[in-house]
């Protein structure tokens, strides 16, 4: 038999490879329109925000409206620097992966504002349970780039002893949880951590990040249910970059107009923000963090953005979506937009920007040289072979002792 009219609705994107990118069907609310309720707002008060779009940077790159966090120029420059560094780092690591220096890599290109502005709006003492696309947080929190690279190339200085795939960072000192390869599992865990912080009498806030596609997992429901029941101080970030590998957001969303709307069903405050607008992401995160710290419970924040690159180094988007969609993405590039905002303020210029890029490129190249001096996945040195038997539990039982003997190490 051959293809016929589908007997049930199977969502499909309007455009596929070969089509010209076209986002004209989107109507995007103007910057500055959204109202900013008090941090003790009930879920119902946030409904317009869950269905709308919080934007602070207008088309002239001016900061407008109630959600302008009114940041000092040096804070903005710091954010710009972290975003540029994130992009430079991603580009470099992807190249190195292609050269066989590491087994795998995942870029966050186009989504830098989500992780950088989100992290900057929180305290470094706040806890994060990220997915694999928020490396920007690590730059904000000042993790040593060489250490990050040593993890990615699984060498002798990898703080994870070569056990995890690249980009699956863990950094306890930086209040950065162990990234899981299993989607969604971190979301309800973040609630447990947040309750633990409350239990210990700390005012620590906990944030987690999840993709649009992963909102379909049961763990998403577990997380929002727990947070609503125990009123936990959590920020649930849904990074809607519109793609889950080859699957467009509509397959997870179904008839739901936004992902933020899902949060309202649990009685949680829910916001939808322009994820490529550094100021909007900052302001929304700041609102949610204050709300959580003040004891008003959790917030769901949908970050509306676009996955500019392939899903990972194992993926080629040309097989399922139009080329150059990112160039046409109406909400633009988060780095360009913040850059232009700073220039508009007279606090930045092209020359300084080029210098910054050059400096960060150099930093990354230099860092990689140092990282490589501690070994690479292929040529070693790696963490010692017997280390594969460590940390299974506090101390190895007889089975691992025997197995290590069997391996002869």
């Amino acid at each position: 038999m051959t293809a016929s009219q589908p007997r049930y609705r199977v969502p499909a994107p309007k455009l596929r490879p070969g089509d010209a990118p076209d986002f004209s069907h989107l109507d995007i609310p103007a910057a500055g329109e959204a109202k900013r309720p008090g941090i003790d707002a009930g879920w119902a008060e946030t409904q317009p925000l869950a269905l709308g779009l919080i934007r602070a940077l207008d088309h002239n790159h001016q900061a407008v409206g109630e959600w302008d966090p009114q940041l000092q120029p040096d804070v903005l420059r710091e954010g710009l620097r972290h975003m540029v560094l994130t992009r430079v780092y991603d580009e470099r690591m992807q190249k190195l992966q292609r050269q066989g220096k590491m087994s795998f890599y995942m870029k966050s290109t186009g989504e830098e504002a989500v992780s950088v502005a989100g992290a900057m709006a929180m305290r470094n003492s706040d806890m994060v349970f990220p997915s694999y696309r928020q490396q920007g947080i690590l730059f904000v929190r000042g993790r040593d780039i060489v250490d990050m690279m040593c993890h990615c190339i699984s060498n002798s200085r990898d703080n994870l002893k070569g056990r995890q795939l690249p980009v699956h960072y863990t950094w306890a000192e930086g209040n950065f949880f162990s990234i899981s390869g299993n989607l969604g599992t971190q979301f309800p865990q973040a609630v447990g951590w947040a309750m633990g912080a409350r239990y210990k009498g700390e005012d620590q806030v906990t944030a987690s990040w999840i993709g649009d596609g992963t909102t379909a997992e049961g763990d998403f429901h577990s997380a929002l249910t727990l947070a609503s029941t125990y009123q936990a101080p959590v920020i649930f970030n849904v990074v809607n970059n519109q793609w889950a590998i080859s699957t467009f957001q509509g397959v997870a969303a179904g008839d739901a107009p936004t992902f933020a709307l899902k949060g309202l069903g649990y009685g949680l405050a829910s916001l939808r923000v322009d994820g490529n607008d550094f100021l909007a992401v900052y302001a929304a995160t700041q609102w949610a963090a204050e709300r959580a710290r003040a004891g008003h419970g959790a917030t769901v924040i949908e970050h509306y953005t676009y996955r500019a690159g392939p899903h990972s180094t194992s993926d080629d988007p040309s097989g399922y979506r139009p080329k150059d969609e990112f160039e046409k993405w109406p909400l633009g590039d988060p780095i360009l937009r913040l850059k232009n905002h700073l220039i508009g303020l007279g606090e930045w210029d092209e020359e300084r920007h080029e210098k910054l890029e050059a400096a960060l490129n150099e930093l990354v190249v230099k860092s990689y040289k140092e990282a490589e001096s501690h070994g690479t996945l292929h040529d070693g040195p790696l963490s010692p072979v017997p280390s594969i038997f460590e940390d299974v539990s506090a101390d190895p039982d007889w089975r691992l002792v025997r197995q290590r003997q069997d391996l002869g190490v």
Partner: protein
Amino acid sequence: MNMIQALNSALDIALEKDPNVVCFGEDAGYFGGVFRVTAKLQEKYGLDRVFDTPINEGAIAAMAIGMAAKGLRPVAEIQFADYIFPAFDQIISEMARIRYRSAGQFTQPIVMRSPWGGGIRGGQTHSMSPEAFFTHIPGIKVVIPSNPYDAKGLLLASIESDDPVIFFEPKRIYNGPFDGQADGALSSWANHPKGEVPEGHYTVPLGKAEVVREGEAVTVITYGTQVHVALAAAEKSGIDAEVIDLKTLTPYDIDTLAASVNKTGRCVIGQEAPRTSGFAAELSAQLQEDCFYALEAPIERVTGWDTPYPHAHEWAYFPGQQRFINALKKVTETA
């Protein structure tokens, strides 16, 4: 004490002793659990230390994971072992591997308690013995007591362990030992030596099995409810069987097991779970490797059938005395 009181006493002591211990589960808070194991503890320790959860076992496990990573010692109850599977992914993919994948930066001192096993006419969804699944997960310990004294000591040891423990409670023997004779009179722990449980703190070490009946003719290895069935079968059969209560399934006490099998040269292993790939298979495989030259007959497995747990014909499924006696005869008569 009966086993419920013993477990309750262990939790009471743990909550008293360590402010980081919290207990939660479905109906485990105000009501004290459908089997009353957490009875009165919320009243005593407060709403935030002993509390009810939404009905979502995966969420219960995930909450425990997050709390444990933060430094608490959660003791989570899964209402019946049959309902632990919605939590399986959080247990195998997360709880069991967080220490490893973080290279020790985060640890998981968690106990997942759950009433386990059949013989209570619970049908296929209140009778399962899913221990084998968890014994195949690196990083997880599996503990199953067979009496009140061990239940308390093993639970305290599990709570004090720095790694995740799946703690299964044989609900058929919560109120008294059970020799496998469905029609027999109900016996109570009151007149059983292992029903004498100290009020205070003590632990029974994880990873150690106990020879509960000495014998020369054959080694019987089992755990939980089946320990009592095996003991009764040994008596009835008149065979000089050595019976070992395993207590901890992973890591199992290979030294005690191998020593006994090397002595007797014959071995029967009991489990209530379906036969294929049950935990008896692991024990049999490892013991034939370690004790091959001492073995005088094939190691026999006495198990449940490869079917769901039936309701009306529960006793046709449950491995009772007769099935142990048949196995004991078979391994001692051969060769």
